């Protein structure tokens, strides 16, 4: 295995009864980067996290985390990872501070050291005021921040975040994104699963798209978007102008078929030059006497990527168990 790979998985398979959660998953994460693992519910993201964090044995395949085998060297792996799962894995009856001190002591910090570490993390995650309150009274965003703090107590070089912002309000999500970016800036390797295309786009250095337990596409966000057909220019034509003439003008700048939507009075087409073609198109429309209400660029979202790759949308993909029931 290469020295600069923090996580490396080869041919991971895991089945629950007839459901194949992982069907030959291959992954590699460079040290100090964020890998975004994107996939719908039931695609195998959580199973992958559970295998890589030693919670689950794979049926087949191998995985190394920090250079250690997740099955035969599980203890070594556990000393180097932090895990924040989909639920806030905390003791609701205890205070935020007590939760972190407990984790610190379990990670062999002396009592004083554990307290110091807890204070440090609480103030860093903006929870100092709530440190001595029961976790029961925390909001969803506070719980997730505390959960993330708990996963960082032992200063793990590799962090697994399983859908860390699912169910959070947009403001809390932004706060968490900032924290994750800071961690990576300080050298932590992050394995981040998400259903939110935007989240992978915002945070990840590399993205793998998984569906039905194996990788169906990977690359940078831009590379994946290029796979979905690149940038398009969309022109909304004013009611008093001629839609057909707008179509002719756009066709001259486009590479590929121009699509017309008479109802919305919109024409759009793939334009390889992207944003740089906008001034020329605007000038040409104006010269041809076309009045525009709007002119803009459509970048394919990762949702489009997902749709192109799998034929179903990421948000509404049925989980394997639901599929089984339909048959």
């Amino acid at each position, binding site marked *: 295995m290469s020295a600069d790979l923090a996580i490396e998985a080869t041919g991971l398979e895991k089945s629950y009864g007839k459901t194949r959660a992982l069907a030959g998953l291959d992954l590699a994460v460079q040290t100090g980067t964020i890998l975004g693992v994107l996939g719908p519910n039931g695609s195998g993201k959580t199973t992958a996290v559970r295998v890589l964090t030693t*919670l689950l044995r794979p049926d087949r395949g191998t995985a190394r985390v920090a250079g250690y085998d997740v099955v035969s060297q599980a203890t070594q792996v556990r*000393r180097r990872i932090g895990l924040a799962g989909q639920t806030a894995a905390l*003791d609701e*009856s205890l205070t935020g501070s007590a939760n972190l001190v*407990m984790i610190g002591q*379990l990670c062999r910090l002396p009592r004083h050291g554990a307290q110091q570490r807890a204070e440090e993390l609480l103030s860093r995650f903006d929870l100092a005021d709530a440190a001595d309150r029961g976790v029961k009274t925390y909001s969803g965003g506070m719980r997730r921040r505390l959960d993330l703090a708990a996963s960082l107590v032992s200063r793990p070089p590799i962090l697994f975040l399983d859908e860390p912002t699912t169910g959070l309000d947009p403001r809390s999500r932004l706060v968490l994104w900032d924290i994750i970016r800071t961690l990576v800036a300080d050298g932590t390797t992050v394995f981040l699963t998400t259903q939110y295309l935007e989240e992978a786009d915002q945070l990840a250095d590399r993205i793998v798209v998984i569906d039905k337990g194996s990788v169906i596409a990977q690359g940078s966000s831009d590379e994946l978007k290029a796979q979905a057909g690149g940038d398009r220019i969309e022109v909304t034509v004013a009611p008093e102008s001629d839609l057909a003439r707008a179509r002719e003008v756009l066709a001259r700048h486009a590479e590929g078929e121009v699509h017309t939507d008479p109802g919305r009075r919109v024409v759009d087409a793939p334009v390889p030059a992207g944003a740089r073609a906008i001034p020329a198109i605007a000038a040409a429309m104006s010269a041809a006497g076309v009045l525009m209400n709007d002119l803009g660029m459509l970048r394919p979202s990762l949702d489009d990527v997902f749709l192109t790759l799998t034929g179903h949308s990421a948000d509404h993909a049925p989980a394997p168990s639901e599929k089984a029931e339909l048959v």
Partner: protein
Amino acid sequence: MTSTLASPLPAQAESLPSLAWWSFRNTLVLARRGVARIIREPSQLLDVTVQPLIFVLLFVYVFGSAIKVPGGGNYHEYLIGGMFGMALVGTAQGTAVGVSTDMATGLTDRFRSLPIARSAVLAGRVIADLLTEVIALLVLVITGLAVGWRIHNGAGDALAAFGLCLLIAFAMTWAGACAGMLVKNPEAAAAIGFIFFLPLVFVSNTFVPTQGMPAWLRVVADWNPVSAVASSCRDLFGNPNPSSTIAAWPMQHPELATVLWSIGLIAVFAPLAVYFYRRKALR
């Protein structure tokens, strides 16, 4: 994040004594968690404090007036002596709910992803639950004294009775831990606990002597571990114990039966609990 402070965890494999020492320390940390929970939220103890209290009042003042102890004797003394078994068997329900709550919140997964001995998590829980059991015992002693129950034999016998109570409670805790790991959520754990608790307690000599039961039911009741605990306590406290005239082996040797039941329960459920904890692949 990567400050000058290094991770407190050893980078290499460590010696067995060091491993054992840290397992012990981790167990204490987790046991202290259980104690901290009780201190912060004493309401968790309602089922081991208020519930027996209600049963005492119900049976002493409502049903008790119509129940006669065979061979004579005070029903209050008979009842309280027997209720120690019920109070302590009931604590297993709390263990089941606690274990399944940790599973549901993902806290168990967090512990399993930490470099700590897996036995420490269960051992910490069982030790913390012993504290609950001592509290349950104290509540019942105080309630009993208030309604006229007395210890007639020596302190040694009384301590032996308390010891037997804690032993069977400890054994039942492991059964509770298994139940907690097998169910889907804390609500199911509470429901299942209650389903086992009710027949276990009512088909026993806790509230009424078994002499009046149909023959087949009486066999079940006489061999029920709760009956053995109740009879042991009545014996050792010097309370009326009409079961001593019953020929069934556990009623003739209730103390030994309690010990054997405890050993049997521990032998079955402790390894099972560890097995479930290690292997259980949640969802």
